[in-house]
């Protein structure tokens, strides 16, 4: 009797494995999301190289201005607030997309876009101010590393805003189709990942850079 139960359990186990073997590939949403996750991780690895360069070159100011003399932490705090809130509102857009609410999706995406543009405007003003004060990327190795790292993040945010506007237009024109939902999943991942990189930027570049 007991042996029979074990054998039956064993059979069911085998059947389960056999079924799993015949399930075929995972749903497309999972494959797409996972692939994009791999891309994001490779992007983070690329940023880690820029961070390493910045950390190594932090003291190489060639007699020029140091981070403590250049950085305005007040505007960095405002930038951080913009990007953090835009990441939160992007999460609201994800929920709106999942319940297929066109109205709330477009509102949340518009707010995300405005906050992202505010971030870019503050960053652009900061860069223009630095260049005007003679602290452009060619001044010292420290400033080259600074402009490369922060500028690369800024370029990612700019690309993200173009993608965001494309998503708004696609959802408006084509509705919440499965492929549009997959694209939006990738966009949301991208936007949240940019916020994670910004956490490293404001901590390492600005806070540690002005302490050193």
């Amino acid at each position, binding site marked *: 009797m007991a042996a029979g139960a074990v054998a039956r359990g064993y059979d069911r186990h085998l059947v389960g494995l056999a079924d799993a073997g015949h399930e075929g590939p995972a749903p497309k949403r999972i494959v797409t*999301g996972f692939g994009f996750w791999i891309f994001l991780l490779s992007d983070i*690895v690329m940023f880690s190289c820029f961070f390493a360069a910045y950390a190594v070159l932090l003291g190489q100011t060639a007699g020029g201005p140091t981070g403590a003399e250049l950085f305005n932490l007040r505007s960095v705090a405002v930038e951080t607030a913009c990007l953090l809130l835009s990441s939160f509102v992007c999460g609201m857009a994800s929920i709106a997309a999942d319940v297929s609410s066109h109205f709330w999706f477009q509102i949340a995406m518009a707010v995300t876009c405005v906050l992202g543009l505010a971030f870019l405007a503050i960053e652009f003003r900061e860069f223009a101010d630095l260049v005007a004060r003679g602290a452009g990327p060619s001044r010292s190795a420290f400033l080259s590393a600074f402009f490369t790292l922060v500028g690369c993040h800024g370029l990612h945010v700019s690309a993200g805003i173009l993608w965001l506007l494309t998503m708004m237009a696609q959802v408006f024109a084509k509705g919440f189709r499965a492929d549009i939902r997959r694209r939006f999943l990738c966009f949301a991942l991208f936007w949240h990942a940019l916020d994670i990189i910004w*956490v490293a930027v404001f901590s390492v570049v600005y806070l540690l850079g002005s302490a050193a």
Partner: protein
Amino acid sequence: MSDLHDISHRPDLAPGDVEGSVTIRVLGYLTGLGLAILLTATSFFVAGTDLVWLPSIPVAIIVLAIAQMGVHLVFFLHITTGPDNTNNVMALAFGLLIVFLVIGGSLWIMANLNQNMMPMDELMQMQR
């Protein structure tokens, strides 16, 4: 056995996907936002204060940054330790390994060079 059967048929989750009602999900994002604001504010406060022992400030800033990245991963990107998230976590672990090798390795090597080698400008002077 039936448990095993169920687990083997439970589909994975894409990164960023999460199950639950709208209210629960909004609360999740709000929790993440609250924690992130708290950690960011602490970070900025610690950087500008002289209330704490000065050499501890860089360590504190780095610890706060890593904690905040964890908050973002859990509450915004929904990377969890559940069985439906194994692939996402494994990829993340590999990415983190490379990041630590690149950053840690560069800092280690360059600090060693700075310590053991003559500064570059003096070296250039000697070669003239």
